[in-house]
């Protein structure tokens, strides 16, 4: 074998080690949208620092710090108090009605760890938004029936009950009287919360001891995007990128299979064929997978607002393999049938 031939083999061989560019340079042309597009300022990441309320009719969003409140006092006829289901807050009743008599010893044997496999549904409100199934029982007109609750907000420690609150709520005229303190505190703080029928709830922060502006007026929002309590089989599970409807104002939504009718082709005539859900998870987590798939592009939604307007809604990006950024979802929607 000649040396030159050997070199030839080596030279040919070395050519095989050079790599080639593999990506295509397709240019995609996106047809201009005739609807509205909004980027929701969730604050980034999977934990969504913010809850974003969306009003389709005004093309507006209201961004609120997700953990800015703990309790929501219902503005309607019933006396109901909700926990902030956009946070991992949990509560349990203590068989006592005197809040001063409840102290750190009462937490013995109480486990308020919630989420990631811990906790159960009795510690949180109904994940479908049924107001008759709140963790805190209906505030009774009979004062002695209102028990003290132990409350562990999201920012408290499951293993350190001194960071928890004890609360007791009673009726006060056409409103609520709240007593609360941390478990090692001896001074009981109080607050009076009046019902405001323009809002679903009046929101209260235990840490700040004050009411907080959270939801827009009940007629002024349709859906909210947030991190929030939901279900994984038999246990509560907190979902990122959860979308709820404003069910207390009467907003409903239907999921549409885009292989039957596409988003672009969906018109007023297609509304009748849809099944609308009045539960708050009508959209819920069904629009996306948080591992792998991202947004299910084979679905979109039709949302009927409180005034009877119908909007078609699709999710453009959420940050899982779709060119978006996690925690800043982009939605697109269009009015398909006006109530007027």
């Amino acid at each position, binding site marked *: 074998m000649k040396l030159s031939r050997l070199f030839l083999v080596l030279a040919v061989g070395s050519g095989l080690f050079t790599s080639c560019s593999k990506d295509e340079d397709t240019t995609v042309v996106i047809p201009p949208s005739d609807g509205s597009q909004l980027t929701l300022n969730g604050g980034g990441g999977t934990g969504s620092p913010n809850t974003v309320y969306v009003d389709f009719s005004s093309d507006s969003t209201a961004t609120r710090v997700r953990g800015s409140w703990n309790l929501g006092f219902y503005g309607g006829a019933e006396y109901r108090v909700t926990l902030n289901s956009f946070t991992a807050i949990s509560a349990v009743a203590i068989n006592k009605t005197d809040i001063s008599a409840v102290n750190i010893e009462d937490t013995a044997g109480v486990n308020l760890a919630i989420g990631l496999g811990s906790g159960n549904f009795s510690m949180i409100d109904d994940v479908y938004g049924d107001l008759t199934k709140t963790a805190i029982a209906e505030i009774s007109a009979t004062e002695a029936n209102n028990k003290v609750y132990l409350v562990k907000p999201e920012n408290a420690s499951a293993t350190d009950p001194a960071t928890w609150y004890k609360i007791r709520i009673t009726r006060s005229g056409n409103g609520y009287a709240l007593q609360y303190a941390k478990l090692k505190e001896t001074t009981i703080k109080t607050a009076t919360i009046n019902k405001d029928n323009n809002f679903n709830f009046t929101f209260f922060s235990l840490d700040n001891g004050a009411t907080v502006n959270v939801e827009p007026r009940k007629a002024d929002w349709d859906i909210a995007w947030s991190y929030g309590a939901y279900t994984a089989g*038999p246990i509560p599970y907190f979902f990122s990128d959860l979308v709820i409807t404003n069910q207390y104002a009467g907003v409903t939504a239907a999921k549409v299979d885009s292989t039957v009718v596409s988003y672009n082709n969906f018109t007023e005539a297609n509304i009748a064929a849809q099944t609308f859900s009045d539960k708050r998870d009508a959209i819920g987590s069904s629009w996306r997978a948080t591992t792998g798939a991202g947004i299910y592009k084979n679905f979109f939604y039709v949302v009927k607002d409180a005034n009877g307007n119908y909007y078609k809604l699709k999710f453009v990006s959420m940050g899982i393999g779709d060119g*978006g950024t996690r925690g800043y979802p982009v939605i697109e929607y269009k009015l398909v049938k006006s109530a007027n």
Partner: protein
Amino acid sequence: MRSQFIVFGLSIALCNSAWAQSGEKTATVNAIADSIHLRDVVITGQYAPQSLKQSVYQVRTISSEYIQLRGATNVLGVLDNQLGIRFSNDATLGETDVEVMGMSGTNVKILLDGVPLVDRGSTRQSLSQIDVNTIERIEIVEGPMSVVYGTDALAGVINIITKKYQGKDQLSVTARIQEETVGKEYNFLSGEGSHNANIGIQWGHKGFFAGAGITRNDFGGWSDSLTGRRKAWKPKDQLVANGSFGYSNKQLKVWYRLDYLKEDILSRGDINYDNGKATDQQYTTDRYTHQAQAVWQLNKDLSVNATASYQDYKRVTRTTIKDFTNNSEVLAPDAGAQDVSKFNTLFFRATAQYNLSPVWSFQPGVEYRRDGSAGQRILGTPHITDYSAFLSAEIKPVHWLNIRPGVRLSENSVYDAPPVIPSINTKFALRNDLDLRLSYAHGFRAPALRELYFYFFDASHSIKGNNELKAEYSNSVTGSVSWQAIQKGPVKVGVTATGFYNDFNDRIDLATINGSDTSTYVNISKFKTTGGTISTLLNWKNLEVNAGFSYIARYNQFADDETYNKTNPTPQFTWTPEVNANITYRFRKLGAALNLSYKFNGERPAYEEVTTTAAPAFVHEIRTQAFHQADLTATKNITRYLIVNAGVRNLFDNTNINNSTLTSGQAHTTGGVLPMWYGRSYFLGLSFNWNRNK
């Protein structure tokens, strides 16, 4: 690419200097040679190179001839035929893990010339990151080898032995090109398909020796049923290079070797036609494995082996968002989208082999290992140091008996290392042609850095490592019988039967401590495996047939779970059968050979806990579908320097296999479909082999 040219330049220089000195003398290509298995020399766990028959361990070997016969382009391509070895493919990361005798990769130790290879997690990627062209032989020892090899060697050891200087003046140049289809996808030399090329050189003169090689494995990925940019199997491009030099004489052999790997796995996302963007992820691994070894024969009764190694592993995750409306690209800002994970290991092992008398031999040894890590989800930049000393003896009171007791003592800087690891291996030569091996051993797996220092808190995860962990340990009993049933005459037959029982305790699992919302790693679970294999080897003239059967059981945790074992009793073990066959026929006059490799992987049952909103949780039997796999390859010498090979892989056209799990679609489940293969594929290769021995 720069390193490639340095290595290449070096090889040319070496080649020239040797060339000037002597004339041309070549030996015939001997790739298609017999492999007389029982005379195969093995070294894994031995005091000195030992014939398979004399070895106190039951060892399986895979030769470089077999690698060539199969046209394999990575180690997995020859292990696929082995009984008890299965693979699982991670479609998201483009990585493959190996399972040995029912145990996942985390319990398998991968060695390169006896040096443990670093992996970043529990998956044994290292196995598919070794240059197959540099392999002389693969030795597989089943059962714990923890006395000699320490942590992770519970299910067994896969020791990759590289080609070495044979002690003569030599110069050899090898080159190889192989083109493969990936299913029906193929494009000449780049892009779709699998493209493999290698050049290597070995030189030796008056005891000095050096070698170098470089290999490119470019896998174009596979789309399966996907039509967009996303691929079911991710494209993977490997550049693997090695260089070595050393010196040997009758008493001493010393050498240094560097293995380098650069691997790019590209995970392209589909274009989102709502915004014209796609997210791409690129995983780039750089791996340097330095090793220096010395074997010193002081006198006929005493020898010393020393091995030092430094490994540097870096994996970069880069996530970009490509905007196809204007062809721009930006880095994704999401948490975890950009990451650099680093691992490094400093390793030293020294052993002495001393023959006190024909009856007594001893092997004392010491081992030092320091592992360091940094990266996402690792708290700080921790390192752990492990010191071990071990001693074994080989006792041969009578010629037919060999007893090897051994013990290992360990001390670790972080976790509570098992103080004493014992083992005893025995071999009885019942007759000249019949050997019985029985062993009892304790195996252990040290908690990984990840388990000690993991840190991951976000909206859906709250997990931290636990530096109070103990090692996992196992008690294992292994036995085997080897019978050379027919040794004389044209037909030769050998039969080997093995059986094993492994009981693993203190297995590390994630659990939530009561009253807390944080999960951590704890020594909580148990595992068991048991089973056996029987294999036969038949040689008749030009025909060689190797066939076997295995029946292996894995423990079902629900059998001992008090929540279920009354209401929903399930068996303690789930069994899976496997059948393999490897048939080689050599056409000697033609200089050709045909090989058929076949394996049946039986249906694998397992149990899972299913939780639903509608009903209480229950235990459900999952069945993973059985599948047949077969490859047919042909090899032929076309000149004295060139061998052509061609073949069909995956004759049964496997793609995904089904798994009847009910939990598909939930977070962290692989779902009901397991990617196993990418369809029937074809390959054509050309090997060039020139050598001159003196």
